[in-house]
Each structure stands twice: as C-alpha cells, then as structure tokens.
C-alpha cells in the first residue's frame, strides 16, 4: 500500500501539504491540487483526498497543500501581493514534488478560487503542462441571458407571482445562502489571451463547470461563448455538469468528477510505464 507523507515546506517552511508518491512514478507528471476557497487541503467533502489517492493509484505523484494563510499554512512574510504569494507557494510546491518524485512537469487542479490561482500560475510558469479548472472564470454572455431570462419572461406563473408581490407592496425576500466561494472576475480578453498562450505553448486544459454556478454559467455552449475559438483547440477539453452543485456534495457526482479528471490525465499525460492502465 502506498503511504502518503506529510510535509512542512516552502521558502519560509510555512506551507503544509500531503504528498503521495507511488512506487516507480519517478519523473511522471506531478499533480498539485490547490485550496478551494477557504477549505483546508482535504478539499470540499474530502474531494482532494479522494482525487489525489485515485491519481496515486493510477501512477501519478500528487501534492495537496495549503497556500499561505489557508488551512495549516502560515504566512511567509516578505510583503508579496496575494498573486505573487500564490505563484511563490506553487513554486515551492513544484520544487517539493520535483525533489520527492523527480517531476519536471505539473498539472494544477483548482476549484473556484483554486481555479483562479491555478490559472494565474499556469499563465506564466513553463513547468505547468496542464490544468484542470473547476468552475473557473465565467462571464454572463448573451446566450446565457437568453437561456436564463427568456423562459422566465414567458412563464405566466412567474408573472402572476411578480404581480401579486407588487400588489402586496413587496416583502422580505428569502435570504440567500451565504456565499462561500467566489471567483473574482478578470478581464475577459485577458483570460482569453491567457488560454491562447497556454495552448500555444503546448499546455492541455480541462474546464469542468457545474450547475452550481448557474448565476453566471448555464450551458455547455457557454465555454465557446465566453472564450471564443480557443475552446475549439484540440488541447482544450470542456465538460458542463448541469446536475451537480459547485462543491460536488453528492458522492456519486464526486466520483464521476474524479473519474473524469483521471481519464483526462490518462489521455493527455499517460504514465510512461502504463502500469496502471
């Protein structure tokens, strides 16, 4: 049985992570999983544990770790911006996995703010050869608005509710769930340029978006609507999972996501020996 190892590492020994290095995986592509929101490295509902262990079984070295000030990691000091800090932390993570497993290339996996951080690093670091963006950047397109508003505008029951509400002088809206995760927007053209640059230098991308972000994304076509023709590039794979929530709370959804990432990795970064096919 492969055992995981716990590490305190980084330029200020401020980071905490768990590495899984299967026997005979030296030199394989390493997979690094970033925090989703404020959840510590095990991931929402333990998603990152399940993902890294399944990838270990498939022959990939992995590291799930906490970025500076998240989970069990401390601050590094040094007055860096958050973006600089994220890049430096992932650099520390890649160095650790290079040292432990001889990895030269890496795939970054991130959900929500994790996708945003993975995007930032992937856009600038040549060691990153692939990225999995789970509910990453998204923009309300014209298509989104038509799909969202048109059915509502044509729904008589909804109009009746609206008119009743107005006649009654309004009322207290049901409080919305507290937002836990959010991706801060980046200029769309900048994101498109980043994606174009990534595939231009040979990176493979896997974008998986869930029904849990229906406030801004609601159809598989929206990948193309948001990011244009770069989504047609053979290095880009997209998947829209309308039925799932943002953090994959149901274990079946989570298992399908993990299988999907494992399959994408096997197709794009097959382990050299193919021992765990």
């Amino acid at each position, binding site marked *: 049985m492969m055992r995981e190892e716990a*590490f*305190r590492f980084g330029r200020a020994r401020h980071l905490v992570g768990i590495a899984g290095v299967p026997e005979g995986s030296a030199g394989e592509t390493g997979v690094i999983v970033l925090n989703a929101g404020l959840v510590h490295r095990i991931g929402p509902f333990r998603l990152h544990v399940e993902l890294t262990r399944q990838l270990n079984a498939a022959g990939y070295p992995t590291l799930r770790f906490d970025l500076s000030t998240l989970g069990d990691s*401390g601050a590094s000091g040094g007055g860096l911006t958050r973006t600089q800090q994220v890049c430096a932390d992932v650099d520390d993570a890649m160095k650790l996995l290079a040292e432990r497993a001889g990895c030269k290339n890496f795939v970054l996996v991130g959900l929500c703010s994790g996708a945003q951080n993975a995007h930032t690093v992937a856009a600038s670091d040549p060691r990153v050869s692939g990225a999995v963006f789970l509910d990453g950047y998204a923009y309300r397109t014209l298509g989104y608005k038509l799909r969202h508003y048109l059915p509502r505008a044509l729904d008589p029951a909804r109009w009746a509710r609206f008119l009743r509400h107005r006649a009654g002088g309004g009322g207290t809206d049901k409080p919305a769930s507290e937002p836990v995760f959010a991706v801060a927007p980046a200029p769309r053209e900048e994101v498109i340029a980043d994606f174009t640059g990534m595939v231009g230098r040979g990176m493979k991308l896997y974008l998986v978006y869930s*029904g*849990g972000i229906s406030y801004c994304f609601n159809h598989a076509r929206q990948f193309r609507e948001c990011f244009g023709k770069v989504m047609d590039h053979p290095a880009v794979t997209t998947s829209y999972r309308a039925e799932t929530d943002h953090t994959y709370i149901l274990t079946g959804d989570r298992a399908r996501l993990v299988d999907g990432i494992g399959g994408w990795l096997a197709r794009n970064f097959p382990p050299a020996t193919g021992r765990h096919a």
Partner: protein
Amino acid sequence: MRNDPELPFFFGADNGLFGMYHAPASSPRRAVLMCPPLGQELIRTHRLYRQLAQALAAQGVAVLRFDYHGTGDSAGNSAEVDWNRCIGDAVTAAGELRSRAGLDRVVAFGARLGGSIALGAADRARFAEVIAWDPVVNGDDYVAALDTMQAALREDADRFNVPRSHADVAEQWLGFDIGESLRKQLMGLRVAPPNVPTLVLDSLPADATPRWEHLVSRRGKVAAISPPTPWNDLRRLEAAILSHPLIQAVSGRLTEDA
C-alpha cells in the same frame, strides 16, 4: 529533524493517522488532545481547532490535533469510519501526545461527536479531564437531524438546479459516504458520564433538546457560551465555524489549572 512549532506527521498503525503537533516554545507544562468532530463538522471547525491549538501552545500547552481513520488526511475512505475505531484512534493519539510532550497528564477537547469520542475514550486514554463542546449525547437525535438535513439537501434549490433523485443522496450525510455500521453505532450512542472531571461548553440554541445534567452530575460543570452555534443550518453548511468565546473558555479552563 527541525523543531517546527507546528509539525505535520503520520503516526499509529501503518502510519495511517494524520497529526499536527503544536509544540510550545518551552518545555510543555500541560498537554491537550483535540478530538475533531466527524463529517462536514470536521471541515467547518478546522480553522477554529487550529486557532485554539495555537492559543494553547502560546500558553505553554503541548497540543495534538489529529484525524481519525477515514477522515481528513488520515488513511481510509469515508465509508470506513467506525465509531469504535475512532475511540481507538483517540487512545492511540493520546499515547502519541504523551510521547511527544513528555507528559502523562492529557486533557481532551472535542466538539460535537469529537466531544462524544473524547468522553467515550476517557478511561482507555486515561484523560485527566474532558472539555466537550456541544457533545452529541443522544445518537438517535443526531442521526435524525442528519437524515432530515440530507433529505432537505436533495431538493435544495440553492444548491441544485433540479432536485436530485433519492438514490443520488442515499447512504450519505452532507457530503460523506456513511457506512451502515456507523449509522447503527450512532443510533445506539448514549454517552455515559466519564470518571474524570468534565466541562461541557454549551452553545446549542435554547430550545435544543440535549441537556447535559447526566454528564456532569458527578464531577463536572456546564458553561454556556454564546452566540449559539449554527451546527444544523443547511444554508451555512460550508461556512467555517469560528468562536472567540470558545477559545477563551478552553484557554481559561486550562489557565485555572496552571
């Protein structure tokens, strides 16, 4: 090995248990084992457990946080979580803490089921005292509450675009596979008063049914902390639980002993 103030490591049988040891700056005078709750409550309280551990370490207390088999970073799948094994893991962790801190006297702290595990392990782990925060003392009620929330989750419009099938949500509690044995174990759970001093920290809503009299009738007391903790609010399922009053209460209790 460097002397990091917070050291992550694996221990126990097959090195399958994850631990985080918080070493005080000087030789520890006391030791606290922090038993986590299970399921989503483990994730929600992770930050608070770390803050409490750091506060205690600053007071000269050696602290061990750890994950049971099948939880957190420890080996095993969520469906393998077993009540008796959790108790056994707490006993193992207490031994690990004694060894690292060089102290025999260990106080246990736990929130929710973590408090119940600490109480259940008190004799075997030879805890000197148990501090339990809203411990689960009646498993029937706890299982019913989880089942109710799981049923509501199935059609939670804030989470899913369309309600999910009953099969999609079966044999899970709020994000985690649940084995049939753990369900039965929890349904039969009746926490008995331990033979050691017990402090129950109560932050349940005033109308909550579990009361603690039987736990503290012999050698313990109850202290209320506020505001009430929203353990069972589905809308806050993924929001961290933070509580400065809790940190003050636990730190204060250990200072009384100094």
